[in-house]
């Protein structure tokens, strides 16, 4: 497992909605097994950035590479999406399918894996996130935390090269955040490449390899958690972290 | 065309006049009134309009009252419309949250005052889209008067065909005329809706 292989590369990504520039030239890359967390004030383009990576939103300019393949000019984006996992803020579960079927649907319909085998994989992932007993329940019967874990299982089942998390815990009640974060922590420790947009500073600090601070469509600063929290270089970073510590107390 | 419009407006009018007290009964009435109204509506909504028309046209002579086909149509369609209109009004009144009424009463308003000043303005706006829908339905149903021999638009079309045999063309023209009136109604009531709209207040539409 080479720790030096670049899984994701984003180069000079720009995106504007109408006359509002949301991404003003974002560049970074991610190596295999790395977990990076993007923080920053709301509305600064963090979610847009993630949505561009799997082309749910088409960037205006710039390039994205997934390992050797260029995502931005790919002819078959659907094939690439199979290798990028996406976990939504509002879970994005399919209401008419059980938890198990939700996790299986990508395997059976997109990867065309045989049903029984898909079921095996799905149960494995559900067990991994701690939901083997809820496999036959429907999304509306599950708690927010459980729903999100199913969402993670669904992304995992596709054996992606990287998983993108778009504020995975923002829609959850406080007591339920923990269960999702611990699943994510285990995932990171097992070597999954993860890019997470979140406000959960505790997670950022303890689990990530690098923190990226974004504001107004730019990357303002990116460094390791220790560096960023102890010694932020940019005054804006300082300000943001200070405001957060006021709100949450020092974590 | 004129006859068709007459039928439409008179039917709607009759329906409206009947529907208002009925919807009140449904919202504010006691158990018996509500049950009675429920039966009335169920029956009127389950029987085809054509059957209603025939029943009235052929039925009333038995009690000694003879209606002209025109009158029978108005009465028949009018009663049917009242059943649907009262549903619309009832839904609209109920949509205006009871909290509004509570707030009104806490200001010292009587039930009646509260209703007229607070509930009614909001209910009207909610009721407008489905009522517009009912309007176009009545317009189209006026064509059923044909079956009773009333000389409305459709029958007139038939007469023209008897002299100039071009049924497709003529009936298409008839269709277009209905369509134009429908659009006119929709546009007119639509702009009334817009002018009355309460900023930020979202109103849901029901279809058919």
């Amino acid at each position, binding site marked *: 497992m080479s720790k030096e292989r670049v899984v994701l590369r984003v180069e000079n990504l720009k995106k504007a909605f109408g006359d509002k520039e949301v991404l003003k030239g974002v560049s970074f890359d991610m190596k295999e097994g790395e977990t990076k967390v993007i923080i920053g004030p709301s509305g600064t383009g963090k979610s847009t950035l993630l949505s561009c990576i799997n082309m*749910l939103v088409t960037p205006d300019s710039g390039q994205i590479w997934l390992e050797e393949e260029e995502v931005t000019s790919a002819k078959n984006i*659907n*094939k*690439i*999406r*199979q290798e*990028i996992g*996406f976990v*939504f803020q*509002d879970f*994005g*579960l*399919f*209401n*008419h399918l059980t938890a198990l079927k939700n996790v299986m*649907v*990508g395997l059976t*319909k*997109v*990867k065309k894996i045989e049903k029984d085998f898909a079921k095996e994989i799905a149960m494995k992932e559900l067990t991994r996130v701690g939901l083997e007993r809820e496999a036959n329940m*429907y*999304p*509306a*019967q599950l708690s927010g935390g459980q729903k999100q874990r199913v969402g993670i299982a*669904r992304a995992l089942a*596709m054996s992606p090269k990287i998983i993108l998390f778009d504020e995975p815990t923002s829609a959850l009640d406080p007591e339920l955040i923990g269960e999702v974060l611990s699943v994510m922590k285990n995932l990171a420790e097992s070597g999954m490449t993860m890019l997470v947009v979140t406000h959960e500073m505790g997670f950022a600090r303890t689990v990530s390899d690098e923190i990226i601070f974004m504001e107004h469509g730019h990357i303002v600063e990116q460094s390791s958690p220790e560096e960023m929290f102890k010694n932020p270089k940019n005054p804006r970073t300082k300000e943001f972290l200070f405001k957060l510590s006021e709100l949450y107390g020092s974590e | 065309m004129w006859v068709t419009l007459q039928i439409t407006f008179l039917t709607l009018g009759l329906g409206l006049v009947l529907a208002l007290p009925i919807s009140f009964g449904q919202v504010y009435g006691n158990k018996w009134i509500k049950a009675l109204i429920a039966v009335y509506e*169920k*029956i009127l909504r*389950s*029987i*085809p*309009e*054509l*059957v*209603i028309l025939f*029943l009235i046209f*052929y*039925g009333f002579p*038995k009690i000694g009252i003879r209606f002209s086909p025109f009158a029978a149509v108005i009465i028949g369609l009018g009663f049917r419309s009242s059943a649907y209109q009262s549903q619309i009004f009832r839904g609209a009144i109920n949509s205006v949250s009871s909290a509004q009424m509570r707030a009104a009463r806490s200001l010292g308003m009587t039930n009646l005052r509260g209703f007229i000043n607070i509930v009614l303005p909001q209910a009207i706006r909610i009721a407008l889209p489905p009522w517009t829908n009912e309007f*176009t339905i009545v317009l*189209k*149903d006026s*064509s*059923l008067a*044909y*079956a009773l021999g009333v000389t409305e638009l*459709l029958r007139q079309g038939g007469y023209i*065909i008897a002299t100039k045999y*071009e*049924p*497709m063309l003529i*009936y*298409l023209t*008839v*269709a277009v005329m*209905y*369509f134009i009136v*429908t659009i006119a109604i929709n546009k007119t009531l639509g702009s009334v809706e817009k002018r009355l709209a309460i900023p930020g207040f979202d109103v849901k539409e029901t*279809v*058919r």
Partner: protein
Amino acid sequence: MNEVDRIWKIVVNYWPKFLEGLGVTLEMTLIAVVIGFIIGVILAIARVYGNKLFHGVATAIIEIIRGTPLLVQLFILYYGLPPLGMNLSPFAAAIIGFAINSGCYQAEYLRGSIQSISGNQMKAARSLGMTKWQAILQIIMPQAFRRVIPAWTNEFIYLLKYTSLAYIVGAPELMAQAKFIASRNFQFFEVYLVVAVIYLVVVLFFTKIFSILEKKVEIPGLEWVR
């Protein structure tokens, strides 16, 4: 008591004919509603997911059919086509007319239902790598169909009532039978009263069946938006 006697006599003497008429009525309703469903699905998808051309054509068709009386549409089919070489039987003209008409209304119900399903379902489906069509067929439509059941039940009942119009172009359904019977014994009122009751019973019956069906197909846990 005289009146009731007369009504009873009519029922007793003519029930086979009533049944025959009812059979045709139901037949027409069923065929029209099914064909209408297929038309509705096509039009709804064209309206929601189609490009400008499909969207425009579908919308035009829907608006025109919904903006004109059903009776006029039937007349166009039954009286308007023969000079152009196409002769339709009353039954056929009626079914085609009902199917197209119902299809347009069903399309609107389906459209509302599809649009009520959050756009996030589509996003989630595509992020798994599904094509647009896969997402539509596997994720959106199954949910849309379940949500449209209440409106669809309404549509079925409407269609059932409107089949009475087929009598005007000569189709042998319930109303036609009624006319036939009434023209023999001249008891128009009593005959139509019986017919009214028949419709009432049938409508109540189907309403009950559909609400049972609705409960069976519910997605567990989800509240119905009516």
